[in-house]
């Protein structure tokens, strides 16, 4: 399974954390599409704590963390 963690406004309607069968996503972008998240609404994409891009591959056991741009003041 791949663990997907949502932060801030990305939790709305998705919860905080979910598991996706590894065979259903080969890249982080596949996960964004699965959860209807436009790529430009993700400011920080971490795979196992490392900065990554939607095109980067994901595998069983990975933890994906998704953060929207938090920019108000």
């Amino acid at each position, binding site marked *: 399974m791949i663990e997907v963690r949502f*932060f*801030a*406004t990305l*939790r709305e309607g998705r919860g*905080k954390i979910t598991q996706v069968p590894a065979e259903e996503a080969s890249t982080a972008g596949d996960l964004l599409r699965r959860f209807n998240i436009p790529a*430009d*609404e*993700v*400011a*920080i994409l*971490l795979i196992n*704590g490392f*900065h990554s891009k939607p095109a980067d591959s994901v595998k069983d056991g990975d933890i994906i*963390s998704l*953060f*929207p*741009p*938090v*920019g*108000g*003041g």
Partner: protein
Amino acid sequence: MEERYIRNLGALTEKECALLRTKTVFVAGCGGLGGYLIEMLLRLGVGTIRAADGDSFEASNLNRQLLSSPSALGQPKAEAAAARAALVNPDVRFVSVPEFVTEENAAELIRGCDAVLDALDNIGARRILARACASENIPLIHGAICGWSAQAAVILPGDDLIDRIYPDGSRLSSKTSLSFTPPFCAALQTALCTRLLAGRPLESGRLYMADLLDMEMETIF
């Protein structure tokens, strides 16, 4: 020690309190974050606060901006900040600048400061401020809010944290903010700023994120 700072003692040493009184900080923005940052820095007892904002108050600010009130609608935010400073702590030298932070004025605005506090509301101005801090060799205390969430970080010169937080192409999708999110974020920033100015150890490039809906605070990286 002046009586007004006596309750700082214990949490801070007398030497640290005296050190804070010698420091100059720049607050970029006098809105949601900026109003609370200025309030906390005034009461903490820094030496000089320089604050800039080219905006004026409008009704949509009233749900969260400390310096706003119905009678202040239309008033320049920098002017309201100066009035608040004179009221709360006239011993702090306060310089208000009724201008937005731009490529043209950023370096001059922050020059000579010991720390810069980010109370801006857009990514473009944050990039300008971060570049100016790098070129002037001044630490930047980042803060930003959205809805129930707040984030803060210390960015020492040479750290590319702003580019990692806001990569090219990222856009702000929401302007939502609640009354308690700006003071929470400003408290995180002021605590980080106090550690920095007092010479206590801190880590650059760490992004702290709080979610007040789920009562969580995490170090993201």
